[in-house]
């Protein structure tokens, strides 16, 4: 198994995301690649997220910070040079997300940081998140990438990212700031360079081999530049303008729900439902009940009566503001 390593001094998020996509396509069947990279101030949103809903676009523009959309799913994150990104690439037959997360975990432990797993692929220190992961694949090749917060400007996270205030409140945490922690706050002497070295060592140890530097040829760089155009294209970043004219959002004891309606001739012609409720069938069930219903409080609330969750929704919709 070849172990390849690459880092660059390029901080342009579009170029970095392009190199990442390039590496997925050039990874060999018997190769693992580790790529470490950093972006200048950038909000990076998930593949299928709505840019306007996730971040404060005006502030980003005012401050000259970037907005980028990545290939993987999941939520929005904020990067600056206090953050280190890692990307692992492998053929699907060699690809184990948990083992790769362990590379990061062991790197942190080797630096004297008492880190642990949480959920599927988060890493926590003292109960607060320092690293999160997301995933994408093309053909038979997989990419597992994530962030490690070393010394990120946390006030910027709060300024630019716009998670629903209601959601944070519901989970009993007052604001974004206290959900995450920088490694520097735990161990002041740590630097991005220390962390890079620890990750390389941990990568070689976990997958048992010598690391070879991955050198980009002119041809590779040309491919990266072509891919950069996609990532920098506003159509990729912002997507199509949403067709939904009415959005209602509310937090309940069972989770948060957002209803987006498209209305044709006063009736609901299309509906998108986002919720973090644990009941997986909920969006589909609600969707079926709301399609074709007139956009009036009485009609909306009358659509729901089956159980307690629906009754709560009905009571809310009776008082919900329906103006455009």
């Amino acid at each position, binding site marked *: 198994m070849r172990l390849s390593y690459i880092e660059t001094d390029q901080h342009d998020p579009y170029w970095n995301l392009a190199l990442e996509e390039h590496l997925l396509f050039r990874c060999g069947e018997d190769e693992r690649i580790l790529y470490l990279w950093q972006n200048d101030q950038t909000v990076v949103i998930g593949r299928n997220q709505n840019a306007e809903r996730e971040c404060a676009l005006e502030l980003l523009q005012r401050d000259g910070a970037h907005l980028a959309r990545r*290939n993987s799913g999941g939520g929005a994150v904020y990067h600056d040079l206090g953050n280190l990104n890692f990307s692992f690439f492998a053929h699907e037959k060699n690809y184990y997300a948990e083992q790769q997360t362990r590379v990061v975990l062991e790197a942190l432990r080797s630096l004297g940081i008492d880190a642990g797993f949480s959920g*599927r692929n988060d890493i926590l220190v003292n109960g607060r998140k320092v690293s999160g992961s997301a995933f994408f694949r*093309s053909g038979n090749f997989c990419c597992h990438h994530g962030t490690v917060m070393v010394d990120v400007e946390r006030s910027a996270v709060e300024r630019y990212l716009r998670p629903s205030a209601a959601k944070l409140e519901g989970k009993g945490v007052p604001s974004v700031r206290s959900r995450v922690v920088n490694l520097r706050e735990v161990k002041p002497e740590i630097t991005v360079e220390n962390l890079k070295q620890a990750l390389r060592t941990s990568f070689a140890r976990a997958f048992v081999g010598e690391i070879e530097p991955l050198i980009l040829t002119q041809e590779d760089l040309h491919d990266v530049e072509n891919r950069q155009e996609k990532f920098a294209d506003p159509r990729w970043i912002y997507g199509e303008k949403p067709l939904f004219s009415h959005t209602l959002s509310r937090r309940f004891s069972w989770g948060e729900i957002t209803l987006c309606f498209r209305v044709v001739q006063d009736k609901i012609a299309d509906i998108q439902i986002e919720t973090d409720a644990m009941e997986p069938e909920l969006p589909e069930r609600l969707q079926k009940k709301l399609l074709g219903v007139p956009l009036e409080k009485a009609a909306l609330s009358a659509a729901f009566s089956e159980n307690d969750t629906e009754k709560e929704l009905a009571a809310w919709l009776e008082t919900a503001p329906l103006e455009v």
Partner: protein
Amino acid sequence: MTIREDLQYTKTHQWMREEDGAVLVGITDYAQSQLGGIVFVNLPEAGDAVTAGEPFGEVESTKVVSDIPSPVSGTVAEINETAADEPDRLNEDPYGAWLIRVEGVTETAELLTAEEYTAYLETLKA
């Protein structure tokens, strides 16, 4: 893991079946099981060209975003709106929930029989 005898497969985990001079394309049972709960499907539009080996769409599951390479070159005659609107059908019935119907097929990618695809999946378990 279900692998149907009457379909052809690609190493990137798509299936295809000829029907009335056109080709139906979907993702395999292995693909859906690796992806987990599928929450989003992005498909081309009728009339769009697809190229063998090149992605024509993508699926997002709760774990991962994956593109879907086309097993054939040709023109999309129809997309399965039901699969696009109810992505979990790809988990429930991967061989029933086709994604696109392609006409005017000019070229195919490397295709595997059910037996060859089964053997290929074995190599991934190593």
